[in-house]
């Protein structure tokens, strides 16, 4: 049973650069959420994608954008990277329904900004 897979595992960038992170949801899931987890903190909700559209967004600037593809996989793009963007980026997938569905998390992408 394929869980949530994320790539790459680690990434090092410099300030001002742009980065793209990728996520494949758990088999059968159609909804993808992205979270940022800074060191020593809990995950913070960035946004969620369903039916290839952004369904809800957390308190993150427009430098953070995303995309969902017809096969339900998703990308997180961050432009004009800042030192403060260094964090573990988590992808979570779930099945859309009227009730809150537990989200299944990937192992994350560790992004370091120099």
């Amino acid at each position, binding site marked *: 049973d394929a*869980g*949530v897979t994320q790539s790459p595992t680690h990434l090092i960038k410099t300030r001002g650069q742009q980065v793209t992170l990728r996520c494949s949801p758990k088999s059968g899931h159609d*909804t993808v*959420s992205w*979270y940022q987890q800074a060191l*020593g*903190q*809990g*995950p*913070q*909700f960035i946004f*969620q994608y*369903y039916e290839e559209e952004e*369904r*809800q967004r*957390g308190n993150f600037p427009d430098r953070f954008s995303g995309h969902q593809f017809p096969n339900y996989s998703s990308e997180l793009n961050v432009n004009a990277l800042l030192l403060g963007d260094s964090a573990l980026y*988590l992808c*979570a997938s779930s099945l859309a329904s*009227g*009730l*809150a*569905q*537990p*989200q*299944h*998390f*990937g*192992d*994350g992408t560790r992004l370091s900004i120099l």
Partner: protein
Amino acid sequence: AQSVSQHNHHVILSEAASLELGCNYSYGGTVNLFWYVQYPGQHLQLLLKYFSGDPLVKGIKGFEAEFIKSKFSFNLRKPSVQWSDTAEYFCAVNLPSSASKIIFGSGTRLSIRP
């Protein structure tokens, strides 16, 4: 804005000791509540969840949590911990009206002495 507070940042216990991790949230309406666990080197996993009904919720690996609405609390308990319970524990909440957005606490690191 909704928030989740976990007051214990690091808890150290001996094997067989009883565990209680505190979690308080700030929202006066109906909420869905979760506890997630992250074992060393692994991804976040759902430990248990509360949506409605019996306020005492049983999860995996002998964990349980009690929802006390009057105290806005959802504390996690286990009568006898094992060394394998060493992990980071996150309390989380979302609103039924905003089912896609999960708000996490900052986490409690649990260390078990063998």
